[in-house]
């Protein structure tokens, strides 16, 4: 009897509380929102990064050419270099980066929760990710497309040759969605063998369990390079590119100031390339081109993008211009004449003027 009374009392109390709180709902959630932002008041992410004096960057740790841990235990790759570019621009030191290795399927959760400041992990810009995932895609650093790799000895040359075959693919990637869409549209059956990272995918492909490996052409190129240079079978990447994959760094939605600063830091590498400035000559520039002088931060030109006037000098001296960064990685496809060449050479690398 006593127990029943107690229960009744508690449940009555809870009802009252529920009633009260649902009245005051609006007020309360706004206070929690302010608290949830944490560092959000005033400075936002940009101030928070400067405060911490380190940029937390989500990267790949298993993709040669884009992001990989080398023999010395250092992160290394095209995407990693852009983390360094951002750190050089915001903090003035390209080495003030803390790398967080992420798998494809947790990267957006990491970005949403604020675990990382920037995601630079061969990530394709899509509408869903821009919207539902709360991601803010910035300057595209690499224009890519999906391809298909098979051992050269099989003689397969078209997707139709793979009817019914096992195809190795990473989970949680646009590659996976694309594979399904393209094969369904053409009425080709297939069986996707999904893995969370390349460490498991590679043995399945090498053993012949998967007859083909699909991924971004750049990644396949880097794996072809790796497999062949380690004494494996000759590989063939099919001519057909069956998707658009614009890859670039990403920040979380809702902080335009930070996004703007990061974006201009990235674009500075292309701007420097266009101006013919690289890490060897940028500091000794003695010309009189006013655009270049503005770019170098001389004469106090500051467009209020949240970066120091001389950020571009830091970026180019410490990391390099786009061409220098790109050519550091032999795994990537040749730059000259590719879609990633400068617009004036017929490529897609085109940035808004810095003035």
């Amino acid at each position, binding site marked *: 009897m006593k127990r029943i009374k107690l229960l009744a009392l508690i449940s009555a109390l809870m009802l009252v509380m529920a009633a009260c709180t649902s009245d005051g709902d609006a007020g309360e959630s706004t206070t*929690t929102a302010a608290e949830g932002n944490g560092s959000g008041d005033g400075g936002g992410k940009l101030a928070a990064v400067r405060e911490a004096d380190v940029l937390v960057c989500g990267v790949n740790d298993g993709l040669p050419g884009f992001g990989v841990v080398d023999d010395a235990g250092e992160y290394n790759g095209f995407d990693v270099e852009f983390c360094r570019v951002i750190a050089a621009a915001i903090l003035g030191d390209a080495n003030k980066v803390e790398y967080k290795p992420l798998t494809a399927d947790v990267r957006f959760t990491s970005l949403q929760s604020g675990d990382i400041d920037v995601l630079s992990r061969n990530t394709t810009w899509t509408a869903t990710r821009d919207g539902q*995932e709360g991601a803010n895609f910035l300057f595209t650093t690499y224009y890519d497309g999906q391809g298909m790799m098979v051992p050269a000895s099989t003689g397969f040359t078209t997707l139709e040759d793979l009817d019914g075959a096992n195809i190795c693919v990473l989970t*949680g990637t646009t590659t996976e969605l694309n594979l399904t869409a393209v094969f369904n549209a053409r009425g080709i059956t297939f069986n996707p063998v999904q893995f969370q990272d390349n460490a498991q995918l590679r043995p399945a492909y090498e053993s012949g*369990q998967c007859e083909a490996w699909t991924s971004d052409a750049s990644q396949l190129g880097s794996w072809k390079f790796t497999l062949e240079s380690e004494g494996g079978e000759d590989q063939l990447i099919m001519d057909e590119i069956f998707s658009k994959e614009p890859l670039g760094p990403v920040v979380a*939605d809702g902080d335009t100031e930070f996004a703007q600063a990061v974006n201009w830091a990235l674009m500075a590498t292309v701007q420097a390339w266009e101006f013919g400035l690289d890490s060897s000559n940028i500091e000794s520039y003695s010309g009189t081109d006013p655009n270049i002088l503005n770019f170098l931060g001389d004469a106090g030109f500051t467009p209020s993008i949240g970066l120091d006037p001389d950020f571009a000098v830091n970026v180019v001296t410490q990391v390099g211009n786009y061409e220098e960064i790109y050519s550091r990685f032999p795994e990537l496809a040749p730059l000259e004449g590719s879609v990633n060449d400068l617009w004036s050479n017929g490529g897609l690398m085109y940035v808004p003027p810095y003035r």
Partner: protein
Amino acid sequence: MTTTQTNEVSRPPFWRDVRVIRVVGQIAAVIVVFFLLRYFYGNLTANLSRLGISTSFDFLSGPTNFQIPYHEEFNPRSPVWQLIAVGVKNTFLAGLFGILIATVVGLIVGISRLSENWLISKLATFYVELFRNIPPLVIIIFFGFAVFTFGPFPILSQSWELNFLGRDDVFLIVNNDRWGVPGLEQSGQLGAFLAILAVGLITAVFVWRRRTKGFDATGRPHHRVLWSLGTILIFLIAAYFITGQPFDMSWPALSENRRTIEGGFMINWGFMSLTVALGLYTASHVAEIIRGSILAVDGGQSEAANALALSGFQRYRFVVLPQSMRVAVPPTINQYLNLIKNTSLGTAVSYAEVTSLTVTSVGNGRPAFQSFIVLMGVYLVFSLTISLMLNIVNRRLQLVTR
């Protein structure tokens, strides 16, 4: 009159009254927990809305957009909840077969450890120490990659096709990706067949009861297992012919391009690696439970059984095992639950269980928070159902005090 007065006087003030303190304490605890949860939930929704992420569960009816491994019949346009249903089915299958392997192997190894044969008991000890001391994920990857992918088996297009004593039909297709075994396929009135079979099962229960009653009354041997099984068998044969052979054997065959298996029943390498690895891993724990529970039965019980001139088998069947079961069942339930939860490691070998499908679907743009709420719900239901069923078994095994 005087007594009630003294009662009122002897009662302490309410802030020191232990009855009041207890009630107030409980209420305070409820309030604190309630507001903590509210705070966390408010924080979450505020953060999600700041990022512009929806908190609704509508995504469950949106299209999946990707193909599930080894489920060619799955249409990628089907809604996400169907994807989750496929995952639940696969988790259930892996759990079921894993538990079967764990129980059978565990029982054998556990009893073998108590064997007086030196070799058998040492082998059993070696087995237990080996599997118990390696993390399940490592065992799964070992089976997936060392046994299948890089193991002794050929690739799919060069499968071994085993014939059954000169028959034309292939009995077993073996390779490093998916195995084909004979299956059944419906060819008649399966519903009627199952209905007759159900009647047979009920009859068998009645036969069992009758034989037990007869035994209790007269003491003649009941042979109730034989009688009941016989009843079921008779019904099975009768039903098969009455309904005009409701199913046929379906033999596995490689497709023309030798890339898929048609007919029969297909078992993929992810399933095999996961169930075998988890079954053998959990078996090492079950074996220890079995051994401990047998040792827990007092030695005097065996001596008493010997004194009654029971045979070795009878001693185990009627004296030792019924008592050791009481000790063994609760910890075994735990091991079964662990096995179910460990099936979530199947993602390492591309097995389409519910965790790996949910993670994939989150990676492809479904909201993480809601997806994982659904996932946790699935595991909760699984685990609670299993513990409920086994707790009923446990209660029936416990000593009945009269």
